[in-house]
């Protein structure tokens, strides 16, 4: 193990290198670009024996790694915001072909207005496309999750693509200490990808993605759906096994529980700002508020059972959303509300377009939530609240 100060993008590149990826293809977009720039340097210097394919668009980048993955290679791509949306069609091709492609998404707001800062709408918008979707809280976790993504996606019980989201700039460009395992140790833990029973290769023509009967289409979807359900168990196993072996100090499983033991109120969040939420939880606990945090690490497969358990033991919950589905509510808010049986769930939308939200803001949001519940106002929570303290007239 080596301890290095790495920015999030470089940490992801280190993980990809340690995974001994065969093929990389990407198209640059801020704030992701630094990841693939670093990988290009590694390939150029001969530190990483990968085929690096430059393409003219994100759609083509995913198409290239799709083909390479169908040929049995271990692959990587990365993108952000508009680049991810441009990949949308190919995302489904990858899932429905059951290929364990790994992609990093440095989250970024979708324009207009043109904005390079983080929110979660890009990554959450693809939640129905069948990818496993993880959200990192720290640079270390972005590193760990990227490495684990290969082991999870390539597991025979899963065979699905994996996307690891790291908040643009807040993680992608922030330098933090990272424990990086040795090459040999990782090689032992993550062996090369198992050969496919059939693979696309030159000289052996066969049809891929052919016209299929309706019932076969439905059965294939059902198989993928079952694989996504099984992935929950695999994520738990792989992350726990990784932590036991490499002891990098990050959480495992689908949900991190922070001060949830005996909590009467629950905050729910994803991504990098969860660290500030934890500070707010600590501050409020000192003031006598029994608040805890459930940090969702994987939004697909969605941790239904874990959240249902957590929600059933608290009086009320608040979902802190950095995304919004127009005409409804925050994306995470609607996901959580769908699994809550009786517990009222408030939804607060904040930090859209990269607006900075600090632990002090979270103290105010969480305190407001508890006070509203205690004043009997939870009936008014059906509509999401927009947290914009600088807007004085509503």
């Amino acid at each position, binding site marked *: 193990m080596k301890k290095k100060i790495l920015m999030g993008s470089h940490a992801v590149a280190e993980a990809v290198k340690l995974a001994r990826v065969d093929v990389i293809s990407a198209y640059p977009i801020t704030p992701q670009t630094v990841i693939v720039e670093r990988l290009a340097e590694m390939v150029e210097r001969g530190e990483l024996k990968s085929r690096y394919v430059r393409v003219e668009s994100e759609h083509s980048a995913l198409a290239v790694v799709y083909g390479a993955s169908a040929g049995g290679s271990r692959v990587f791509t990365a993108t952000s915001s508009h680049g991810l949306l441009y990949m949308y069609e190919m995302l489904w091709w990858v899932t429905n072909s059951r290929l364990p492609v790994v992609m990093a998404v440095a989250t970024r707001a979708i324009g207009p207005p043109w904005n*390079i800062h983080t929110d979660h709408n890009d990554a959450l918008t693809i939640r129905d496309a069948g990818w496993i979707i993880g959200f990192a809280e720290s640079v270390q976790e972005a590193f760990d999750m990227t490495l684990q993504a290969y082991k999870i996606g390539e597991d025979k019980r899963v065979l699905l693509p994996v996307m690891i989201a790291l908040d643009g700039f807040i993680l992608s460009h922030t*330098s933090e200490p990272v424990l990086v395992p040795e090459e040999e140790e990782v090689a032992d833990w993550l062996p090369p990808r198992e050969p496919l029973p059939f693979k696309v290769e030159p000289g052996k023509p066969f049809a891929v993605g052919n016209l299929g009967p309706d019932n076969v289409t439905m059965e294939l979807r059902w198989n993928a759906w079952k694989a996504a359900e099984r992935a929950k168990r695999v994520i738990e196993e792989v992350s726990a096994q990784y932590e036991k072996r490499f002891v990098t100090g990050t959480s495992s499983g689908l949900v991190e529980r922070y001060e949830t033991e005996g909590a009467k109120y629950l905050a729910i969040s994803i991504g990098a700002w969860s*660290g500030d939420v934890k500070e707010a939880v600590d501050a409020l606990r000192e003031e006598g508020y029994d608040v805890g945090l459930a940090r969702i690490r994987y939004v697909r497969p969605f941790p239904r059972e874990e959240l249902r358990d957590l929600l059933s033991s608290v009086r009320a919950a608040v979902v802190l959303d950095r995304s919004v589905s127009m005409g409804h509510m925050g994306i995470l808010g609607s996901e959580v509300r769908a699994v809550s049986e009786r517990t009222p769930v408030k939804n607060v939308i904040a930090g859209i377009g990269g607006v900075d939200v600090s632990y002090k803001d979270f103290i105010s949001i969480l305190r407001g939530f508890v006070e509203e519940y205690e004043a009997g106002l939870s009936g008014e929570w059906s509509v999401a609240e927009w947290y914009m303290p600088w807007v004085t007239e509503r």
Partner: protein
Amino acid sequence: MLREFMILSRGGQGGVTASRILATAAAVEGRWAQAMPEFGAERRGAIVRSYLRVSEEPIRRRSAVREPEGVAVFSRRIIEITDVNKLAPPPVPLLLNSEKGVVLGERRVFYVDATGIALKLGLLVAGWPLVNTAMAAAMAKTFNIASLESVKKAMGDYFRGKTLEANLAAAELAWESVRGL
């Protein structure tokens, strides 16, 4: 204890690298650290804010630094065109890249001629004096962030060969010559 600092520099002056060097220096000393740039749509010449956090414990906060205990300003002109008093109000101490001290309200002002040091050692990129290593060393001393040895060790992660040698010399000169009013 969590300590938070702010750097105000121009894109191209190396403010972000300075915060990374200092984060690495703190890690060399066994502490936790975080270097975080705040990018707008900046390009060379625009004013960039960078943050540095140092702690004995793992750092969880990832929002912008709003109450720094010290601020470093990479050129005097930045003080004229940005409201430093709003970003880091007095009495927050300020370290300035300047040949001489200036009075900036009710606060301690420290100064180091980082530009002069860079020019003397030939630290230039595209004609710009590269002041970040001198400023990093001066910050480490002024705000008691890390020892000169640790800063020099950290610089080995960012520079090589002759560039490293010149930057090590810049760090030493800055460490010796930083003054307070």
